[in-house]
């Protein structure tokens, strides 16, 4: 990324030419947004192909093998092109503006969270001092988009899926936030780069300085909630194919459906990127470049998510609520309490 000094020079150049100050800033913003959208699309297409491959091999199949030659690597590109060319259907009885706006809201919410993901030292769009808080706040906007989609479709399955999604997201956000508080107590900052830099050293000289070493319970709680937040198996009751057809996006087709799909995989990347930043030491690692380490750790977590999906069956609604309120929330509070106590007792020494 360019340093602040270079940016100032870039702005000064335009000012010298007499062009209003908003033009270079807009240009920079557009550039950054296009880079992020490009990254999201490529990473989502790779993830879709990867998920199909992993699921196939877990079931002793091959998965996509035809398109593009080597193990069907171009399958997602072909699917994306197909979705672009398909007819855009809006049901007659649907709430048109809400129906059209819903995929945009869902995608914008997941796009906005990429602003504070630290891919490497300096490789962060805006290092907000409330980074984690910002991500938690913005990512809950996804639910609004899902409810809009469910309501706007004017379809009972879509509405049911959206309601389930809202119930699930509201329940799982509570343990998610509380599990993140433990590591944040240790770091003492919400800034993403501060969190990563805190994990630079080692614990007791042997273990890496990652927060997962001292906060394993928080990591497990966070990861479970992250899977639930992204509506993936075993917590995919909002889309449950067998009972709700496919939940809130039943009525969507063509590119609008593709945007929902893209947002889902973008969200998966975001939750895994946060887990990497907070628990797995972010870009810290020997030999390889920082951004390689970051992507390696994130894609490993994504692999675990895919692996989990093809291992477990869907839970019932009551089981879902049971896990959130009776298991994850008490454990998260216990973890937070113990961490707080230890930080209080040990702080004069450190």
């Amino acid at each position, binding site marked *: 990324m360019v340093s602040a000094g270079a940016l100032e020079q870039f702005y000064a150049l335009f000012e010298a030419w007499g062009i209003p100050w908003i033009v270079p800033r807009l240009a920079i913003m557009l550039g950054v947004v296009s880079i992020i959208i490009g990254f999201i699309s490529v990473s989502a297409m790779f993830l879709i192909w990867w998920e199909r491959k992993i699921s196939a*091999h877990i079931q002793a199949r091959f998965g996509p093998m035809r398109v593009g030659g080597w193990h069907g690597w171009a399958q997602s590109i072909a699917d994306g092109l197909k979705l672009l060319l398909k007819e855009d259907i809006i049901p007659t009885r649907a709430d048109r503006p809400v129906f059209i706006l819903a995929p945009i809201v869902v995608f914008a919410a997941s796009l906005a969270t990429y602003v504070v993901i630290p891919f490497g030292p300096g490789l962060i769009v805006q290092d907000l001092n409330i980074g984690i808080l910002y991500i938690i706040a913005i990512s809950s906007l996804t639910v609004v988009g899902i409810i809009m989609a469910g309501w706007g479709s004017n379809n009972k399955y879509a509405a049911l899926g959206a309601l389930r999604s809202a119930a699930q997201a509201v329940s799982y956000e509570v343990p998610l936030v509380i599990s993140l508080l433990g590591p944040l107590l240790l770091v003492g900052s919400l800034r993403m780069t501060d969190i990563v830099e805190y994990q630079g050293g080692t614990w007791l000289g042997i273990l890496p300085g990652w927060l997962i070493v001292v906060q394993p319970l928080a990591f497990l709680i966070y990861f479970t909630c992250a899977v639930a937040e992204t509506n993936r198996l075993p917590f995919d009751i909002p889309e449950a194919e067998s009972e709700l057809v496919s939940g809130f996006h039943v009525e969507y087709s063509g590119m609008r459906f593709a945007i929902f799909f893209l947002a889902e995989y973008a969200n998966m990347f975001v939750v895994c990127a946060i887990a990497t930043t907070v628990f797995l030491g972010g870009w810290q690692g020997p030999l390889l470049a920082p951004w390689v380490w970051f992507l390696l750790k994130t894609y490993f977590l994504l692999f675990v998510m895919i*692996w*989990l999906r093809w*291992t*477990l069956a869907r839970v019932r609604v009551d089981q879902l609520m049971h896990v959130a309120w009776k298991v994850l929330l008490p454990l998260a509070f216990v973890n937070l309490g113990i961490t707080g106590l230890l930080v209080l007792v040990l702080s004069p020494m450190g």
Partner: protein
Amino acid sequence: MWRYLREIWRGFWSILLSMQITLRYLFTRAVTVQYPEEKRQLPTRALTQHVLTIDLESQELKCTACDMCARICPANCIHLAGEGKGKARRPKWFVIDHNLCMYCNLCVEVCPFDAISMWTGKYELGGFSRTNLVYDMETMHADGFYPTIMTPRSPPGAAAKAPAAPGGGKGGGKG
């Protein structure tokens, strides 16, 4: 309280165990056969397209146009006519309509001369029109050795070279 924690632990442990199983399957070989590129080895006695077997020495059809197969066929898909008298009798034309054939193997079982076989392994019988699936005598004329119920599985010459696997032939002796 104790029971609560134990159940959480057991749930967590069972997830880990099932993930271990799926990980093991992730690295096993896929059972899929990529059909046009690779083909499955059919069992010897798989019932596929008909062939009119030949006498390997004289290269002539064994069929004597006795009409037994046409008469036993439940689908009525075999039609033939013969010419010549006595031992010289041979089919003039011989047609099997594979649109109708139900692969029951009765024509093979009833044939007194082992002149027809369905153990050919030719199963790709697609056609662009129905007449593509009506096979005449030239199409079904055998190009080599094909096993039938009464003959050995491989040509008589090859059987002598490759001895049968131990315990394979119950009848014993030389085949």
